[in-house]
Structures are given as structure tokens and as C-alpha cells.
């Protein structure tokens, strides 16, 4: 690796880390979600500061060149991360679906209750409850 490239890589890694840390500071990211990215940044900085490290790992893994090893490792990491994100998205959609369904069921139940009350013709005793339901729906 040439000296220029090393400097560029170090600068890019540090900038990326700074950006991610700032987002965490501004509470834009949950801690659990930021752990992966902190680890990823640490790896970038480590590799750029000590190029001997990826060389060693590459030799251990048996890859042809260090560049190949880095590509392989990063792509693999990202694929795993992407899969986890799909998983989370799926969970999120399920939760949203459940919430929307519960809202609609509750709305229907309240409407029918009001109807039943109106049909029975006793608005004095149940008037307060009806008022609550009205305001809750707003």
C-alpha cells in the first residue's frame, strides 16, 4: 500500500467514524443498532493504521491477495447485516399490521357500543362514557 493511499484510507475511516458517532450523540440511532457500525469503523481504522493485520489475516484465510480478502470480508459482513435488516423490517411490518388491525377493531367495537346505547335510549347514564369515546377518537 502506498503512503498516499494509507493516508486517504485513515482519513476516510476517521471521518466515517466521526459521522456515525455524531448521529449517536444526537440520539438519531439506538445504541443496539449502533454497535455494529462502531465495530465496523473500528475495523476500518485498525486496518488502515496497521496494514500488516489484514495481510496476516489474508495469509491465514488463504486468499490470493490482501485486497481480495478485504473485499470478501466486507461483502460478507454487509450481506449478514442486510439480512438482519430485512428480518427487522419484517418484524416491524408485522407489528404495524397488528397495531392497525387492533385500532380498527377497537374503533368498530366502540361504534357498535354507541349504536347499542343509542338504540336502548339511555344517553343520561352512559353519556360520560360516550363523551370519552368521542374525545379518544379525536
Amino acid at each position, binding site marked *: 500500500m502506498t503512503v498516499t493511499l494509507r493516508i486517504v484510507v485513515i482519513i476516510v475511516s476517521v471521518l466515517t467514524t466521526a459521522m456515525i458517532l455524531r448521529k449517536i450523540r444526537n440520539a438519531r440511532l439506538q445504541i443496539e443498532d449502533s454497535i455494529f457500525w462502531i465495530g465496523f469503523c473500528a475495523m476500518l481504522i485498525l486496518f488502515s493504521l496497521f496494514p500488516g493485520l489484514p495481510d496476516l489475516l489474508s495469509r491465514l484465510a488463504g486468499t490470493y491477495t490482501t485486497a481480495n480478502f478485504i473485499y470478501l470480508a466486507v461483502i460478507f459482513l454487509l450481506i449478514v447485516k442486510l439480512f438482519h435488516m430485512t428480518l427487522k423490517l419484517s418484524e416491524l411490518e*408485522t407489528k*404495524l*399490521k397488528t397495531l*392497525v*388491525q387492533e*385500532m*380498527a*377493531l377497537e*374503533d*368498530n*367495537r366502540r361504534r*357498535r357500543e354507541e*349504536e347499542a346505547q343509542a338504540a336502548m335510549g339511555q344517553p343520561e347514564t352512559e353519556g360520560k362514557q360516550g363523551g370519552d369515546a368521542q374525545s379518544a377518537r379525536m
Partner: protein
Amino acid sequence: MREGIQELLIVIPAYNEAENIERVVNRLITDFPQYDYLVVNDGSSDQTAEICRRNNYNFLDLPVNLGLAGGFQAGLKYAARCGYRYAAQFDGDGQHRPEYLAAMQARMEEGYDIVIGSRFVGQKKPRSMRMLGSNLIESAIRLTTGVRIKDPTSGMRMFNRMMIEEFAGGLNYGPEPDTVSYLIRRRGARVAEVPVVMDERLLGKSYLTPLNAARYMIKMLVSICLIQSFRKRR
């Protein structure tokens, strides 16, 4: 939950069906008072919700669009909570005829778990691209379950109490042929078909463009042949 509840609940998923919903529901109310019905307005962007409110229909108003699976599931959650014995899936666009529900229910009483209103029980399928799709799904279900369903894509299905609970509680229970194949394979559901006639859709446009149809076919075939075999029994 409700007084004087009938045995069968007709669930009518409606997404932007303002032009059809009144005709469909009024027909049910006037001519078929022996059934309860529930419109599920799936976050329509047109007047569907206003029409339901104005006519005082029994309806669920989903605040956002969940798609057919989510909307139908909401309807079956309602059926499960109100304690209905049977629930029927019924189109909001008027292509299903309610007069066949009685025959379907009679078949249900014989001990089936799912009864499908089938266009092709008595007669041969016409030759068209759509029927090619139908045949492919039929073969896929036959291959994986050994059960022959002549009209797997029919949207007119009836479910019993056990199936209602399944649909209400589970994830990945779209009202589609792949779910039927799953229920046969993993839940031992017994399926029967009853011959019905369906009308062409009168107003509004169908979502079934050639591209959507192709996408649907691929999803169904992959789901029936591959994914459903990985699913665990709950």
C-alpha cells in the same frame, strides 16, 4: 360479544371499492339477512369509508393500507373474537354471488375445514393465459399435498372455526392458494369445492394487470413448492 349473532360472517375486504361496495353490501343486507357481514376498508383513498359510515354498515376502518392479507386477517380477528362458526371471504367488487353461500355452508357442515367456491368443478377450464396460471397452481398444490383443487385462485372461500383461529393468530396467512396448501399439509385441513358462477367485475379496475399476474404466479409457485415446506407447525 354481540347479541343475536349468526353462524356465518361474510368478510368483504374493500380497497377503493366506492363504486361497488354499496351495491354488494345492500344486496347482502336486503336479500341475505341470515348472514352477518363485515366490510374491511383497507385504508382506501376514495370514498369507501364515507359510504360505509353514511350507510351505517358494520365495517372495520383500517387507517393505513395493509394489503389483502392484512385486511382479511383483521376481518378474521373480528370473527374469532365474536365467536363465529364460519367465515367467508367475499369480494367487494360484486363478482361473487351470495346465493352460493348456502351451498358452501351446507358443504362445511359435512365436516370440511375449507370450502372453495369453484368455477370449474362441473365444467372444463377455458384456454387462456389466466387458466394456464390456474393450472400451474393446481398442479403445484397437487404435487405437494396430493389434493386436487380445481379452482385454487378462486377468491370465494369459507373457513370453519379452527381455520378462523389459524388465520387470526398467525403470520403469513394471506387468503391465497399458498396458505390453503400450507393448511392442508401442516394443519391437516380438509378442503372441498362447490360449483359457483362468478360475474365479471362491473365497475372500477382490477389490479390484475399482466405484470401483476406474472408476479402473483411466481410468488405462489415459489411459495407453494418451496417456502411452505420449511414452515413449522405452530
